[in-house]
Structures are given as C-alpha cells and as structure tokens.
C-alpha cells in the first residue's frame, strides 16, 4: 500500500527477509489510516537495526543514542504536546542499555507510543544475546548459552502500571496494525512489544517458531491487571494482544503550563517584564 509516509530512492539497510520490513510497512499503514500528518509526526529511536526505522519513513525524526530514545521522546512531547511522538527501537536498546528509562518513562505516563522490535538478539552488533534472549541461546559472547532469566517486558510494564501494554507478532499484519492504531490513539504511555524474527542472527526464534509459539488472547479483560500479569507469565505459547489498558492523566496534562493551553513552548512569550519583576523582588525579602 502506498502511503504519504513512503520515501523514494532509499537504500534500506536491513537483510532480505528481516521482520523489520513488515513492522515498517504496518506502521506506515497504521499512520495512514489514522490520517496523521507526517509534518506533525516525530519518530524517535536509538541505535540498532530496528532503530534505523525512522530513516525510512517520511517524518521528522530524532535518531539518538543507543538506549536513550525514551527521555528524548519525553522531552519532545513535553515541549510540544501537539506533536505525535512515536518511539521505535530494538529490544537491546529499550530493555538493555535503556532499561532505566523504560522503567521511569512508564511511571511518567507521557503520551507517547513505544514500539519495540523484539528479535531477542542484538542484530546490528552481530548476534550477541539481548535481555529477551531465551535461556541457553548460544552466541559468540554467550558461548555456554544465556544463563539469565529472560526479561519479560510485558510483566515488567504491568508491574509499573503501564497504561497500555500489548504484544504483537510482525508476521500478522492485520492484528498488529490494529494494535498499533489503538496504541497511538491511547492517551498515555503505550508499549507494544513486537516479535520480529532476525533471519541472520536468531536461528531459534524464527517466523515459524513465533507462529507456533504464540496465540491471541480471547475474552481477556484488559482492565484487570492481575489477570494481565498471569497472562504475561505464560511462556508457551506466548499470548499476543492487548494485556492491559488504563486511563490515567498523562505527564503533559499534569503540567501547570498546559492546564489552560496546549501552546508549545516555542510559541510562548519570553516576558522580560516578568523577569525584571522577579529580580526587583530580590531587593526586598
């Protein structure tokens, strides 16, 4: 599907067959269906294969440091709440290097959408384990296989009362697109962890593996955090869909300066007089 987000003549650096392509196309389709203006869209990413994604979409982007996409996104959204802000990064970027921001950005509940391309491996640096790599996964660094308990982003997000928590699989275009659309429309921090096969470095968690080891939740009560947590602990098969949704004031909506107007910071007046008054007040105490 052609969208207003397509770029011409670009050289996409992903491997043929990589799951990133389908996330890329799904996202563009979702944005198109939501009728979002590229000029009003900012995609923020870190560093990694997934993090190259904004380079391939017509939009504003901030391709920052490995692991640091979330604080950048929070800063952007807080400075101009009228922008649509999406974060797109890899599992290593978001849950490894960026783990502390993941935890605390969720607590803030900024109105941003966070799409994690979870391929359970470090792609760009050529195949080391990521926090979501499964036990026993062997790599050039984890020569005896991964020893750590895998990081469960869904469970962690729930434990932080993340206001929108979902998991998807990039092999399923339709349902993933619907989840992304819901996430973008959600007012608050929306996490979508998307399973994405890395055809080059992850020979375990392949398209086939994901297909065989996932299922969509049915009759799941999205407002029950306890149930959501129980679901999050399920391992084989792994549930897909929206685990939890909660309506809570966003970071931006709680700022004094946005109580009466959403005018972005750059449009606000610099009042020399107000500052002079402050200074003059320091002559008295």
């Amino acid at each position: 599907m052609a969208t207003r987000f397509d770029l011409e003549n670009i050289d996409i650096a992903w491997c043929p067959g990589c799951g990133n392509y389908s996330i890329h196309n799904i996202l563009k389709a979702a944005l198109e269906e939501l009728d979002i203006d590229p000029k009003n869209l900012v995609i923020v990413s870190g560093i990694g294969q997934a993090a190259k994604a904004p380079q391939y979409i017509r939009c504003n982007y901030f391709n920052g440091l490995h692991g640091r996409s979330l604080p950048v996104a929070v800063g952007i959204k807080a400075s101009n709440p009228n922008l649509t802000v999406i974060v797109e990064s890899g599992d290593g970027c978001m849950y490894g290097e960026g783990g502390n921001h993941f935890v605390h950005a969720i607590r803030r509940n900024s109105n941003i959408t966070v799409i994690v391309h979870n391929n359970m491996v470090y792609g760009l640096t050529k195949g080391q384990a990521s926090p979501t790599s499964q036990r026993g996964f062997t790599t050039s660094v984890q020569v005896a296989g991964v020893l750590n308990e895998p990081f469960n982003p869904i469970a962690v997000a729930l434990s932080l009362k993340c206001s929108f928590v979902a998991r998807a699989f990039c092999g399923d275009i339709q349902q993933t697109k619907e989840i992304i659309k819901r996430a973008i429309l959600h007012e608050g921090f929306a996490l979508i962890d998307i399973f994405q096969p890395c055809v080059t470095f992850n020979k375990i968690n392949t398209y086939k593996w994901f297909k065989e080891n996932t299922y969509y939740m049915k009759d799941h009560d999205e407002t029950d955090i306890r149930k959501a947590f129980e679901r999050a602990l399920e391992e084989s098969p792994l549930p897909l869909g929206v685990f939890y949704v909660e309506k809570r004031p966003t970071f931006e909506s709680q700022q004094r300066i946005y109580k009466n107007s959403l005018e972005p910071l750059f449009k606000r007046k610099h009042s020399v007089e107000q500052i002079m008054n402050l200074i003059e007040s320091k002559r008295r105490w």
Partner: protein
Amino acid sequence: MELSILICGEAGQGIQTIEYLFPNVLKDSGLNVYSYKEYMSRVRGGSNSTLIRVSDRPVRAFCRKVDVLVSLSSQTTHLSRLSDRIDSDAIIILDSDSNTKLYHNGKIIHQVPISKLALQAGNKVYSNSVVLGMLCSILNLPFENALSAIEKWFCNKGGNICEENKIAAKLGYENISTNSDLRIRKDFNSDPRVKEHLLINGAEAVAIGALAGGCNFVSSYPMSPSTGVLTNLAAYSREFDIIVEQAEDEISAINMALGAWYAGARALVTTSGGGFALMVEALSLAGAIESPIVIHLAQRPGPATGLPTRTEQADLLFALFSGHGEFERVILAPGNIEQAFSCTAKAFEISDKYQVPVFVLTDQYLMDTIYNFDSLKKVEPCFNHVVKTTDNYKRYEITQDGISPRGIPGFGDGLVCVDSDEHDEFGRITENFTIRKKMVEKRLRKLKDFSDEVPAELIGNEDYRYLILCFGSTREIVVEAVKDFDEVAVVHLQQIHPLPSNLSRYLRMAQKVLIVESNATSQLGKLIKMDLGFNNFETLNKYNGLPFYVEEVRDFAKRFVKGEI
C-alpha cells in the same frame, strides 16, 4: 570599617536561619554584607560554619580572619576544627549554661547561655533568634532591626512562635548589651543605597539568568552543589512558563533536554562533576546533531564522590575534552554573582546561535556565596534563532560559517531529521567519505569566527609588571587580595573556551605571571600552554575543599612580587 563574623555549630542547630536573616538585617541597615558557608555532607550533626562579613564598603570575598566567632554548640570541637582561622584577638562566644569566661587552647572563650535563653523564651530551637539578637547588639544596631527580621520570618508560622522568637532575640540582645566584654560597637557608616541593593546567592543568580536567557525547560537530577539552581527554577515554575522535571538519572536528564531543544524549547541541565560524567555521551550527541544545550556544571572536589558539599575548580579540562569524537563547545565561568546571572543568560543565546553545547562552570563557593550589589545586567528579549522550515528543508545545510538554519518539527513545511550517525545535509545516515569530511569541517568551523562574547577582564594597574590570572569564582578573592599592590594587575577569565583573543597580549605584556586556581594540577595553566603556547608562569593552587582565603592569595602574591616565587 569592617567586621568578620563566623557562626559555627552542628547541622540542624539553626545556622542556616541566621545566615539568611542576619545578612538581610544588615542590608536593611544600610551595611554591606558578604556570606559563605562551609558545611559537611550530612543533615544533622557534624560541624559547619558560615562566615559573614560586614562592612561600610562592598565586601565580596572569603577571608581567613575572624573577628567574632559564635558557636551555637557548647562543644569545643568546632573551635578546634576552625582554629587556624581564629587569631588571638578574636572574640569567641560559646553556648554554655553559664555566663562566664573559659580558656581553650590559650584563647579566652566568652560563654553565653544561648540555648538557655532560648529555652527561657519558650524553646531550645529559638537559639538562632537569640544569636540574631546578640549579633545585632554586637554591631550596635537598633533592636528594631532584629525584630522586623523575626517578624518577616516567623510570624506566618502561627501560634506563639513569633512572639517567643522576639523574646529570644531580645534576651540575646540584652545579654550582650549588658556584657561589657562583648560590646564591640564599631561604628559603621550606613549607606542608604545599600538598602535598595539586591541580595541573592550564586544559585539564584544562575537560575534567574536562565530565565533571562529564555530557559523554559530544565531536566536534572539532584546533586550538590548544583541542586539550588533546580530548586530555584522549580519555585519559579509556579509563575513562569517553565517545565521542571527531575529525571531518573543524569543520562535521562540531558537526553530529555536535547529532546526539548529539538522541539523548540530552551533547555538547561544543572549538575555536578559526577552527574556530568554520566552526560558525556549525550554531550557528544549534542555535538553530532548540532543541538544547543546549556549545562550548568557546579564543581565540587573529586574524584568520584569526593567532598560533596565543598568547592574546587578541577573539572575545567574535563568539561573541555569530554565526549568522544571532535566537536566544538563554549565554556563560561562566571566570577561573581552578577556574572553568574549574565553568563547563564548569555549561555542560552550563544548555544542557540552557534548550535553548540555551552557550559556555565561554577562551583560550591559561588553557589553558596551571598553579597549585596546594585544591579544585574539588563534582561534582553530572547532572539529566537529557529527558522520556519520550507519543503525540502536541510537541517545540516553546509554553510560558510558552519551554522545551518535550525528548524523544529511542526513549524513550517519541512521535516526536521537529526541523526547521531554521520549524516548528509538532510540529516540522513551516510557513510560517504566526502560528506563525512565536509561534516567534520562544518562542525569544527562554527566557532572559527567566535567574537569574544566576554573578553578577558583586566582589573587594576594597566601598567602592571606582575599579572595574576584567574578564572571563575576566584575573581573577588584575588581582586581583594592584591588591590593595594603596585605594579600588579589581575586578569580574570569568564570565557574559558574559546580563550578570548585579548588574553595573549595581556600575558605577554607581563614580566611575571601567576595563575591562581582551586585545583591541584593547574588546569587553566595547561590550557594556556596548549592554546597560546604560553609557558612562562607560576602557580598557586588550593585543593583541600575550601576556597582561597584573601589572605593566602595576598601572602603568596607578596612573595611572588618580591621574587621569592
């Protein structure tokens, strides 16, 4: 006429209140006042002290000499800790149950029942009011002056607190008035203009300077001695359009601030060495994406946690060379409270104009220094450097001066793409060798024509033979130290990088140069060797955590002039 008063005691015993009230009383009485506190990294107990200098001429520097020492504690350990500052002619007052004299290390100690008087007034915690009364009496100020201070401070707290504190002050005042040994009664000339002066500390000056520079976003993580700037801005956020966010760590703080600049805000981070160390990767990011960012770096002694509440100037070369890869930056180091304001305001303008990180390099000494002064530099309306983008906008357009018009998302028809990887003019990732070379050169070209925002300042005799060079917060100390010397001038630097173009001439005109720095390795000296090829100087260093005393700079300078150094 001048008097230097040192108040000491444990954290939590009320020094802070006196340090706030008494200078205000003095200023309201038309007297010039200076204060600086040295304190331990703890909330209660320990041993702290605050120096308050009173004078009928402006006073702005830390000195060793103490004329009057008041201990809020009955423990003589505080005296021992301060013993090198207490000469034999100092009047020492110690809290005690009795009203008698005592000898300690060969010095007379006047015992005053401070806490007993407080208790008599209603509560032991009124000791600070007792001392306020005492101090007013010692200086021969009318009791009304103490009274109005107490009213301002305590009389919105409800209950009997106000009245009881007044009684406490009165008891303190009278105790001194009736104690012939302690009536100092120096006669100060009150200057009515002083009453109209400003009285703020360095932290407030930086915070207000930020507002003047158009700052409307601050994201930081608490760290002494930089936190004061954050809390001041937080207080102003009740009225000013500024977002104040305490981040989960310093990495988040600076990345948030970069996001804010990207979206059109003017953002500040305030931190100290250890916190800044965590921001270094993002500093390099600012260099790569050519984002403005203002970093208030309030230095304290390192390495690592070091002495969290004390002062040092040892992060200069760190600030200058931090960050991987090569990119430009500007470093400003204000020399006093007025400059703390003006440098910070200027930092935002420079950062926005040149699209480079700008450091405001202060330290605990400047943050916690208070003195009265006439006025601050005029607040200028902010010039907004952001452009409205057009279709096909190039964020990194190669220009002659290396500066590309900066757009922001959602303002204009273009897309604003920034990339921490090497990128082309559109901000898209590239590995093209030719573009890489051009981008490196563009980034390094930006300060080629940097006109001196703050030239080196020559203070004193223009026909000097001896030159004393200093930077940042040592300014007033050095100036006072050599003010009566012939043939000596001081050059003070606010602009550390790029070095101002007039510096070299000043240095080369001198017969001998002395560089005074609060660090152990003479970092400014190294910088001058490196940047100016100037190698011929002596150094004076201090690195025990305290600022220089006027006296020790004076003594050293004397020997330097005499040729003993």
